């Protein structure tokens, strides 16, 4: 890309009579306000409750099964962690505000996925 741009500039400087001007097919974009991440207030997961949320992509045995394996990993590696595995309501792209409120009230952290 940069090589081509520089080629273009070089051609313009040379003032070639064969140059043409064309319209740009790309559209300008508007970016969204940046939102900071939630502060990490604990440096260890010891004794924490972690919700594992399956969004449902790939069916009932895809992300859910990965999270079951993760539960086993926590049990073996950080046994003081309490894991709660749940399925999100609706299809994978639908919001589930009730679940988010429940997790915020009862959990310390969340692992969510798996999007494809």
């Amino acid at each position, binding site marked *: *890309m940069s090589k*081509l*741009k520089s080629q*273009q500039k070089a*051609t*313009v400087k040379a003032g*070639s009579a*064969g140059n*043409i*001007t*064309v*319209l*740009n*097919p*790309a*559209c*300008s*974009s*508007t*970016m*969204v*306000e*940046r*939102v*900071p*991440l*939630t502060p*990490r207030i604990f440096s*260890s*997961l010891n004794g924490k409750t972690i919700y594992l949320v399956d969004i*449902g*992509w*790939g*069916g*009932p045995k*895809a*992300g859910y*099964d*990965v999270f079951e*394996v*993760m539960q086993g990993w926590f049990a073996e590696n*950080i046994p003081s962690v309490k894991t709660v595995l749940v*399925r*999100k*309501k609706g*299809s*994978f792209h639908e919001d589930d505000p009730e679940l*988010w409120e429940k*997790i*915020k009230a009862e*959990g*310390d*952290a*969340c*692992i*969510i*996925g*798996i*999007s*494809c």
Partner: protein
Amino acid sequence: MGIPTAPCTAINVSEYVRGWDRLYGSGMPLRYTTFPLPIAGVSRQVHQRYVNGNDPVTGKPIMQEIVDALTKPLTADEQLTGLPEGAVEPRLLSPDTEENLQEFFKEKDWTDYLPVVLPTEERVAAMLKGTSHKPDEVVKTLMWPGGGRQLTVEKVAVCAVMAGAKPEYFPVILATATMAPFGNSTTSMANMIIVNGPIRKEIGMNSGTGAMGPHNRPNATIGRAFTLLSKSAGNLHAGVTTFGSLGSNLQYNNCCFAENEEALPEGWEPLSVQFGYKKEDSVVTVGTGWTYVSCVGELVTTYPPQMLIRDYMKSLSGMGSTALLCADPLVAGILYDQGFTTKEMLAQWLSKNVRIPVQQYWGNGIITTGFTNLALQGLEPFATWQKLPPDSLIEPFINPKTINTVVVGGQTNTIWFITDFMIRRGVSIDAWR
């Protein structure tokens, strides 16, 4: 959510979620962990290997990365607020030679990698004479992949020139642009563009012999323009903002054709009329789908066409209860003689007669992903279908209104295609004249 969260994603959308989502979507520098694919349809052993393995993007152990995502203090960048600068695209590109510009357009991924007609000011001005609408009128704001890109009449004209269209095709291209961008899914979907009404003849579209092939300028360029504007104005690029694993060859032209209204059997209405337009209205319908299956050979007297159409429909996913039959007028005539005096009668028959084992229905990932959660929540018929024994037969095309027929072809053989393109009410072309 207000608590530390570690989102997990598959590798196919990794670049999008790590970059574009912050710029155009959530605005958050989310700490994604990436998993290899496939995730669906593989054993527990594979999932164990993933969880105990490394993130294929960062190379770090996946579980350590998740623990870090939940516990490591925020960096300065992760605490930023405010609006970043948007990408401002100049109206004109720097002057250059035609050869350099052709290469530049390819480097920017603005083309289908066939030569384009370069959109000079003169050519774009000529294209704009094909409509009464002003160049700065917004046809549609493209929300995917973020950025609220305003697709103006002039931008559409640029892409119409690039595709090789004539100004008289421009109202059709503007109408299709209201349905932009093209289908975009890991499942490798595509689009189908069907034109009805007087404009078919006015601009010389092909609805007869070879209508679905590369034999006609308006068919070819209207369909191509839809892809070019999706890619360039819509900023869609493979592996970054589009995710079709195999992609679809149909996207070169989006299967653009006109219905052969003149050859419809008596009582069979044009597609646009079925959706509430008048015959004198010019309408474009943009469908989205995947599958395109030909009957291959001519009809035989021992097995009526509706039977073979029924059989072939069993190979479709049944997603959305959708099927679209593209039938040569000769096939339509034989179906008429079989007693289907309207397209709707054929749809009702197919809806009741296509039966598949329920395990086949749930055996398709797009059905499982889309409807399992709805079944678990009790929504019918999915809840009942999920409880049935695997060999139970179900009728997946439960809604005859989503089984449509379009008549196209030159009556050189009794050929039909069954497809799974989902269509809804089309868009007025007359509104864009």
